């Protein structure tokens, strides 16, 4: 249960004297040997990829989505796909080829269409019918990287980010978190917690993070604070950040609910971009992924129900954007998965693995066995510049 903070607890116990303990002595952080930045955004609730990047060139599209297709006009991407208008603020990124999409991707999860199982599998990065692996895939990537420090990777927010859970050290923090204890109180806190490794480690980590991060300044809504915090860390010694955006479960009146979530995504990406600055942005890849896509047909209440294949969003100066990647399966009833959902034509883990390979130089066999056990990465789709 305590895995990822184990090392902190242990280091405190080994260093029996108070002076050596991480509670009493702020640890100095150092940058990792690698320089690229990876941001993973988990879009919780099942983003409707077919409404975000609309296949208007597909002859079956309009009939499947009579209300949604007509609700608001999309922005042309490549003559075949159109972008949802709520992402209009990202068009400059698309034009600069800093924004791209991978369509018709899914995790190996099938058929039950549960958010909660779907998210668990997305973050575990495993195939439920295949090999088991502990923790989340982004943590397993850290486990095979050199020079990983306590603040190389940040899981940000007030809730658990399972994609970063695991044995490698990860900083867990929120923009508004703060631990302010006098040195004397801190020593007593360490004493009180000493027999509980999990709580002790959490406090030790909180103390280090409180000392090393400035209070989350600036206004804006929660997602903007998170993005600003992530950017702030990535501009420094952090290399990886992961957080989630909620609100994608659009069963009803999707024409009203989806734009709100897309606006958050768009503000998040733009805040990251301006926050890290041009230099770091040039080395950054952001991937936003979701547990599943939604039904090809809109439902009876102006929304869509849980489906299978969906969309991955990629952004950043390191990304070769300006294109909608992936093999398009078509929306003809015969081509739908179970006559209902967009057919998956790629495992969402494959583009994620290619991006990690490009950013860090990790070799393919490590990615296919340790990070995403059982994955076949296939041929290089050329997602990075």
């Amino acid at each position, binding site marked *: *249960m305590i895995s990822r903070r184990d090392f902190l607890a242990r280091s405190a116990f080994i260093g029996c004297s108070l002076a050596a303990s991480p509670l009493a002595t702020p640890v100095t952080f150092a940058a990792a040997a690698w320089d690229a930045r990876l941001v993973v955004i988990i879009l919780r609730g099942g983003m409707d990829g077919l409404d975000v990047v609309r296949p208007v060139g597909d002859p079956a599209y309009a009939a499947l989505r009579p209300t949604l297709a007509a609700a608001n006009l999309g922005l042309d991407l490549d003559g075949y796909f159109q972008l949802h208008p709520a992402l209009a603020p990202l068009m400059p990124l698309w034009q600069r080829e800093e924004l791209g999409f991978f369509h018709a991707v899914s995790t190996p999860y099938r058929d039950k269409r549960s958010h*909660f199982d779907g998210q668990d599998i997305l973050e575990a990065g495993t195939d439920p019918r295949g090999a088991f692996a502990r923790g989340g895939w982004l943590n397993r990537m850290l486990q095979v990287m050199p020079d990983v420090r306590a603040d190389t990777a940040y899981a940000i927010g007030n809730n658990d980010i399972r994609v970063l859970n695991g044995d490698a050290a990860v900083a867990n923090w*929120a923009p508004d*978190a703060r631990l302010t204890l006098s040195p004397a109180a801190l020593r007593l806190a360490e004493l009180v917690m000493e027999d509980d490794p999990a709580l002790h480690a959490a406090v030790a980590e909180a103390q280090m993070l409180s000392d090393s991060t400035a209070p989350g300044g600036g206004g804006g809504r929660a997602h903007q604070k998170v993005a600003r915090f992530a950017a702030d860390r990535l501009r420094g010694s952090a290399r990886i950040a992961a957080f989630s955006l909620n609100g994608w479960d659009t069963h009803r009146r999707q024409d009203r609910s989806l734009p709100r979530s897309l606006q958050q995504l768009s503000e998040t990406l733009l805040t990251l971009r301006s926050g890290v600055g041009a230099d770091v942005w040039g080395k950054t890849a952001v991937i936003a992924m979701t547990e599943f896509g939604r039904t090809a047909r809109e439902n009876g209440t102006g929304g869509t129900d849980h489906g299978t294949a969906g969309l991955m969003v990629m952004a950043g100066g390191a990304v070769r954007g300006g294109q909608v990647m992936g093999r398009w399966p078509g929306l003809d009833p015969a081509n739908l998965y179970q006559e209902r959902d967009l057919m998956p034509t790629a495992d969402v883990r494959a583009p994620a693995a290619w991006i990690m390979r490009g950013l860090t130089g990790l070799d393919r066999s490590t990615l296919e066995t340790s990070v995403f056990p059982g994955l076949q990465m296939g041929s290089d789709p050329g997602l990075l510049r």
Partner: protein
Amino acid sequence: MSFDPILAEHRFGYGHSIGLRGPESLDTMLAALAGPDHAQAEYPLPPFRHIQDTFVLWRRFQRFGRANPDSKEGKSAAEKAQNIRREAREEHAQWFIRHQLRRISTRDGLRERLVAFWADHFTARGKNLLLSHANPAYVDETIRPHVAGRFADMLIACVTHPLMLHYLDQNASAGPNSRLARRNDRVRGLNENLAREVLELHTLGAGGPYTQQDVRELAELFTGLGATRDWGFKFRSAMAEPGGETVLGATYGAKPSMDHIRDVLTDLAHHPATAAHLARKICVHFVSDTPSKALVAHVTQAFLDTDGDLMACTATLLNHPDAWDTTAPNIRTPDEFVSASLRTLGIGADALEKLRLSDVRKHFFRPLRRMGQPWYAPGGPDGFDEADAAWITPQGISARMDWAMTVPSRLMQNLPDPRTFVDHALGGRVPKPVRFAAQAAENRAVAVGLILSSPAFQRR
């Protein structure tokens, strides 16, 4: 291992309170749960009807104000609508206080814990401004009456409540061949949301023996469940899908009716997969993230033997020695941690009832959010996490420590003497380092904060 009066309150209630005797035996615990609900009687909340009335009134003023933006009457109506919203927020904060007072003052803490457990299991949230205040009323009407009753009754009460119908979009779902769909050209049809979550979360569990086809058929069977424009319950047979529907192999009646919906929910409530799913969740919640197989099997069997009599299940749990095993205790959730702190400090009605909305936000709503558990507001219908690892995070534990060191002194004129409070808060079982910290801290606020932050208090 068997009944232990201190663990009884600590693990199965909101901890010890200075002015209240704890349960003497298992029998007194169970007798209290089987008896009347004193906490609700003492700190009543308005019914869901009150939310509906507020909604109707607000809408009337708001519409008039919008239609007549330039007239004096219109402006005054718009102002009244605003006031209704403001008052609703104030009221909501008062309901939070009453909710705390029930936990603080009860001698039947087990009931309050069961209410919290089932309220989370049947999470429903309002998605518009006034319905977002409806949770306390929803829980009082759907959960409280049944925590010592039948699971089937609780399931039916929750699944047919207007707040749930609204939250999981059932309200707008219509059978593709229903009378309404056939006579109305506007596209109308199914919405699977509620049907899926009933199978996956409320009854069988995600690993349960159902398929997409069962989800579809149950969604068709649920058509007709709806709410009026004032959020009263209404069964609309015009929206119901005609013809029989087959769920898990059983076929439910050809003619749209509430009876079939009650029947399918009753069958789902009694299903062996439901028994196993719920028994495990109960054991994980109350005892440990890794409950013994024997304990889970025991509670599952009690559920099956009694067709989901929750009183029998609770008694079975408490009678099993593994329920009193303390080798791998859970961490209290933030919601529980805050209530247990207030209870053990003896912060009562006089201090809490005078708090205004801004105080409740500052002392409770925001801190609970930082701890990871905003009041009655989990991210999805699966409720809050049961796993300890989800709560023991640097940011979550920081938020608890910050609260424990600052908020009690804002709620109490005089904090208790930490040297005696430490015994009291931990039922006399005080680890040496905590006793040392209690007398060595630089001031009372820090000492109290350290006692409340100690593993002995946070775990149960």
